[in-house]
């Protein structure tokens, strides 16, 4: 094996990220608590550099590295840029939150960076093993991040739950992969794909493996009936960690589904389409209906996530190209909205006040008209009301679904989004129609204000000019 065969230049952003994570880990050891900002700034600058590295050298075609374990293609370029931006935003949002709770430690950034590395490996995986490796790297970091506020019993419980269920999901996924390996004799995704085409149809073992893989993926994405961990983990984690879990990893999970199901098992599309229909419908029904009963905003957004996952599944099952592009658009948009929503919660927190109950949002329009407006945009985007980008995401998915002649599925989807509107409107009602109970001023640093405003306005701007992002998504699957 020579160095050329590794083709390292394809994976430069990942290599940089690895070096960065290790660097922050080392530097942080030598910092006094008062200088902890250095770890933060170092991480942000490193991420900025990685983002530039990704963007200046976008993959024009498919290039393999590490003997076929790793692939770089237009899809991976876009998704990597998105996850890096999302993680940078999470870091901006979390600084003050962590400081106020005395958990402003370098480990947060180290874990975050390693999680990002895991996501990027998942996005660029061309091999069952690299997918699994990336997924586990991501998951282990997330388990630790959920328990980051270690004196908080809720967080510890959430971490435990997340770990146990996550481990089961990983096991399912691995079990499914082993069956597929048994039938196809390969772990490389394109070889698996061509091997499956050679096999006779209705191969029981293969379909069995497929079922286990879909279950594993559904667990990770949080689709009903494998959603049980989502509300508890979202609720129990420190809000910054929730914002992390709710944004970038969903994009990585989307990439994983594309790699495994669309690219690896594309010829079994009819088989997994049926499974995704069930998952999608159940997610939309349960997510939207149960969200109505929530009084905690983090839990409500958790159920809202579940319903969004249902929509993403709709796009995936409506593949190939148009549906995948729609699902990708939806996933990116979802990650932006969800991150913004949790960002506003973080904005309202103070020392000792988590501000995650719905009632904490009462009268936000009096306390801060601007951030009430940002939240308004985000909420209407989640509800899918134009002119926000959430509408175009829903439209893209519905269009793809109608195109494969599953009109009934589109009708189910719109019906449950009507139900969804109800709980979204409740948040607006609290912010705009009710009087504030807590009139304390909202204090936060300029960097967070700018980042959060940009996050909220991006949802509006993308709603007015969705063409560019949509073309990028379409091009990624062309």
């Amino acid at each position, binding site marked *: 094996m020579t160095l050329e065969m590794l083709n390292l230049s394809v994976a430069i952003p990942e290599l940089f990220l690895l070096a960065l994570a290790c660097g922050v880990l080392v530097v942080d050891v030598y910092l006094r608590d008062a200088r902890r900002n250095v770890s933060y700034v170092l991480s942000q600058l490193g991420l900025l550099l990685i983002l530039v590295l990704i963007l200046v050298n976008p993959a024009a075609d498919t290039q393999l590295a590490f003997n076929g374990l790793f692939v770089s293609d237009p899809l991976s370029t876009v998704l990597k840029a998105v996850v890096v931006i999302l993680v940078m935003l999470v870091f901006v949002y979390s600084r003050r939150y962590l400081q106020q709770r005395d958990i402003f430690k370098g480990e947060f950034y180290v874990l975050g960076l390693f999680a990002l590395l895991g996501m990027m490996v998942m996005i660029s995986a061309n091999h069952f093993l690299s997918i699994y490796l990336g997924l586990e790297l991501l998951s282990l970091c997330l388990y630790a991040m959920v328990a980051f506020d270690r004196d908080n019993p809720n967080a510890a419980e959430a971490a435990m739950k997340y770990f146990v269920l996550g481990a089961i999901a990983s096991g399912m996924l691995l079990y499914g992969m082993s069956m597929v390996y048994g039938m196809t004799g390969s772990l490389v995704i394109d070889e698996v794909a061509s091997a499956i085409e050679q096999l006779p149809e209705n191969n029981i073992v293969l379909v069995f493996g497929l079922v286990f893989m879909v279950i594993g993926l559904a667990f990770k994405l949080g689709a009903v009936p494998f959603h049980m961990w989502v509300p508890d983990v979202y609720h129990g984690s420190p809000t910054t960690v929730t914002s992390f879990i709710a944004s970038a990893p969903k994009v990585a999970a989307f990439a994983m589904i594309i790699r495994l199901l669309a690219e690896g098992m594309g010829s079994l599309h009819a088989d997994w389409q049926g499974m995704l229909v069930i998952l999608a419908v159940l997610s939309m029904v349960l997510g939207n209906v149960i969200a109505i009963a929530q009084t905690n905003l983090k839990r409500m957004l958790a159920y809202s996530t579940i319903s969004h996952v249902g929509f993403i599944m709709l796009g995936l099952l409506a593949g190939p190209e148009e549906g995948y*592009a729609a699902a990708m658009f939806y996933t990116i948009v979802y990650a932006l909205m969800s991150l913004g929503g949790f960002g506003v919660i973080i904005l309202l927190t103070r020392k000792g006040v988590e501000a995650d109950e719905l009632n904490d949002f009462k009268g936000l*329009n009096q306390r801060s*008209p601007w951030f009430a407006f940002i939240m*308004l945009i985000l909420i*209407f985007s989640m509800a899918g*009301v*134009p*002119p926000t980008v959430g*509408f*175009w995401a829903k*439209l*893209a998915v*519905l*269009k793809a679904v*109608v*195109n494969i002649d599953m*009109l009934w599925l*589109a*009708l189910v989807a*719109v*019906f449950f*989004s*009507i139900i969804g*509107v*109800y709980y979204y*409107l*409740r948040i*607006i*009602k609290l912010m*705009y*129609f009710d009087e504030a109970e807590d009139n304390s001023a909202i204090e936060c640093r300029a960097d967070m204000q700018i980042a959060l405003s940009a996050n909220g306005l991006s949802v509006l701007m993308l709603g007015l000019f*969705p*063409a560019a992002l*949509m*073309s990028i*998504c*379409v091009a990624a699957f062309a």
Partner: protein
Amino acid sequence: MFADWPLLSLVVWLPIIGGIAVLMSGDRGDSEGSRRLALIVALATFVLSLGLYTNFDSSTAAMQFVERHAWIDAFDIYYHLGVDGLSMPLIILTTFTTILVILAGWQVIQKRASQYLAAFLIMEGLMNGVFAALDSMFFYVFWEAMLIPMFIIIGVWGGPRRVYATIKFFIYTFFGSVFMLVAMIYMYYQSGSFAILDMHNLPLSMLEQSLIFFAFLAAFAVKVPMWPVHTWLPDAHVEAPTGGSVILAAIMLKIGGYGFLRFSLPITPDASLAYDWLMIALSLIAVVYIGFVALVQTDMKKLVAYSSIAHMGFVTLGLFIIFRIWGNADGIDSNGASLAVEGAMVQMVSHGFISGALFLMIGVLYDRMHSRNIADYGGVVNSMPVFAAFAVFFAMANAGLPGTSGFVGEFMVILAAFKANFWIAFLAATTLILGAAYTLWMVKRVFYGEIKNDKVKALQDINPRERLIMWVLAVAVLALGLYPAPLVDVMHVSVDNLLQHVAQSKLP
């Protein structure tokens, strides 16, 4: 004037950008600056929209002032604006009404005034967009986006049960519109284009047409509103601030009627023919039954709200009775049918003026007395003689007195209905009695009789600002009533063109 300007873009975007500017101007001090700015924006938009009228070529049914640019390539969605004789009058109605609404809230709204004004301006732009959009997705964006400012207006500045009313309003309308969205996507795959005019020429089987017809019906019937999906309207009207009620009654309801004209009739003519009995029945229920419901109301705003539903029944009746008229006359009797549709259009514009005036009047009383209860009033004429004169005039207009605009539309529709069926016309004509009964009875109880209440005795007559609003509306009502030709002329060719479309079967 303005002939080379992109007028439609201006009437859509000027109020929206102006609204954002008003929002930015903030609520420091007495908001006087915000009010002035809002008024200037509204006046400028109105003047620009008049350019649409003066430059309008009423000899063609083609879309005019067309602007078409690629917007979202991946979806084939275009930034596509244009008006014909059906939409242009409604745009002017919108820009006109917004000025009055801003004037009406001048002193009353003190709480977050800039947000209030901005919401109305943004809504004005969005409503203009609904009327001007020629791409169905573009239309849908405006159609839904319009809900957001209205939701906020009712919820923030509304009455005690505002939260219930506004959420009901939002969910009802949202419910109706999502099915329309699916129908539009479906037609996109049949015709390969989101352009509304391409959808007009799309052949569709009876099953497809029926499903699309009902999807559109869900959207437009809620907006109009038609019985039995009208229940959001009285709640929304009662709780909304005066300006919100005016916009709801004067414009938002018209959007439902416009939707039938622009989408249901030309896209699904065969389904419209097959289900015209349903539409006629629902319209007559609105006219007769809702008329009786209005009679027993004790709340003035609720009464006018129900009267709006009854009057909008005439619009839907006029639109869907054309098939019966054609059925009776051998071949196509374009006179009768175009009389019906033009009557419906005139009724829409006229109802915009009259219901706006009535809600503004109730607003005037409510600002002074903080009650909408008819029983709290009596003998108002003694303390507010000028106001009472206007009130009687608008009440007469609402009852359809000849010479006012209320008469023209109703008369045209009833006349056309006689060509269809005597009994339909008979039932529709009961509105002349019912409308007079509930409106004039309300006026009698509020304005005449003994002064029961010391507060009434102390009432101040309307101030010059309110007087200006009343005069403007009164002139509009009279002008349209005495000489409706300018309105009918611009729409005539478009209506005929529409009817030719509807008369052709689209079955493949």
